[in-house]
């Protein structure tokens, strides 16, 4: 490949492994900065809400977590689909690396939503459309992880998980609309691409900065996890064996965040 950039170069674990380490380090730092900034804006800069008081401030965690939970499922299904289509090993590894982070954000969204619901709605939980579909999303993540954990052959695990993730993607809108028609109490979205947000500009900024922070965190966590998966699966290859040997001889470093 003399002209242009060869994207497939990084689809092999051996070449991706050091890059993933660097990306994980960069995005971990970026995530720490963005989350600190977002929390500062959320807690000290943004005004108190006229109706909900200070209880609303959990929005700065809740909404970005809910965004990430849905977005990460799409990313996971994307990589799973790529793995099925191109039969690349790394795609399946990426899908398995993303799943736990997605489940974490789904749980975080449910947990913070419940904490927010108590002071504002007066109840920890209601069978509302969005809560229910978020709960089902959590089940879908668990199903994906449980299926992959039950299969010993990693290639089969990747492909079986991919089929499940894709079936889940088809089902997510159906689930969402069926629960929406079933019951709805949750407030409408305050942010919409077609009209100006119905909230103070600082609140909006805080949420976007937090969302960026969560995004960076997800990339860093997925890269770290992908590195572990790569080492586990490729332990028989020369480069992985050398890397592990290097780890054993070098105790003072922080191997998780460094390149080969």
């Amino acid at each position, binding site marked *: 490949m003399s002209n242009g950039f060869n994207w497939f170069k990084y689809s092999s674990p051996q070449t991706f492994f050091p890059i993933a380490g660097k990306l994980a380090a960069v995005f971990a730092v970026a995530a720490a900065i963005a989350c600190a900034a977002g929390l500062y804006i959320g807690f000290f800069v943004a005004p108190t809400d006229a109706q909900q008081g200070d209880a609303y401030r959990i929005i700065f965690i809740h909404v970005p977590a809910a965004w990430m939970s849905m977005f990460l499922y799409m990313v996971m299904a994307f990589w799973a689909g790529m793995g099925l289509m191109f039969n690349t090993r790394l795609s399946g590894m990426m899908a398995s690396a993303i799943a736990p982070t997605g489940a974490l954000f789904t749980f975080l969204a449910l947990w913070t939503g419940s904490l927010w619901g108590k002071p504002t709605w007066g109840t920890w939980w209601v069978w509302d459309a969005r809560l229910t579909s978020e709960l*089902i999303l959590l*089940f*879908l993540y*668990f*199903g994906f992880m*449980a*299926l992959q954990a*039950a*299969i010993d052959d990693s*290639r*089969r695990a990747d*492909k*079986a998980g991919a*089929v*499940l993730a*894709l*079936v*889940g993607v*088809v*089902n997510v809108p*159906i*689930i969402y609309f*069926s*629960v929406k*028609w*079933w019951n709805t109490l949750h407030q409408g979205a305050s942010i919409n691409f077609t009209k100006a947000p119905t909230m103070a500009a600082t609140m909006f900024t805080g949420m976007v900065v937090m969302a960026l922070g969560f995004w960076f965190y997800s990339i860093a966590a997925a890269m770290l996890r992908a590195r572990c998966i790569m080492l586990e699966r490729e332990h028989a290859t020369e480069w992985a064996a050398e890397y592990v040997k290097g780890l054993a001889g070098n105790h003072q470093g922080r191997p998780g965040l460094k390149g080969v």
Partner: protein
Amino acid sequence: MTAAIRCMIRRDLLLAVRRSSDVFTVLLFFVIVVSLFPLGIGPDPALLRTIAPGAICVAALLASMLALQRIFAADHADGTLEQMLLGATPLGMTVAAKVLAHWLVTGLPLVLIAPVLALQFDFPQELLGVLTLSLALGTPVLGLIGAIGAALTLGLRGGGALLSLLVLPLYIPVLIIGAGSAEAAAAGLGGHAQLLLLGAFLVAAAAFAPWAAAVALRISME
């Protein structure tokens, strides 16, 4: 191809008839689970009338999930499934035929007995038609979606519990819409919208699920 499919359905039905106790286990499970609801909740007729569609739908969901492993397990164990994968008939069609036979054996009996169980819940007789129709449309969807899960978990350890974890979240729309149709009819809304939606689910699942299950089977048999 139609001959092969007819042969497949006939074979699966014949096998089920020869081992008829398997069929009755699913049906009995359904009857028992439905009867557990009044025991757990209390015999108040007004309450039972409200929960009847939901309780029957949930029980149908569990019963059809319990039966899912039977779709492929026996053929997987004796090697017939490998021959089906190698055969000239498109695998998706084979899967569709197997699901149809499976529904005739495990789904249809549930649909037929459901009105009787609904009477136990003091469910209004004029609404029994809607309830039965919603089950008749819903249970094949459960079988079709479940076939994907059954194919994915073929031969895995902890298959049954794992299968329920995979399949039950995907069953939720059928549960909501299926129970909703009878509830809407009870509220005087007719329930036609829900029945049409269930029909749409059935058409979509019949078109896509067999092929997804075929892909899953090939992955499992690699």
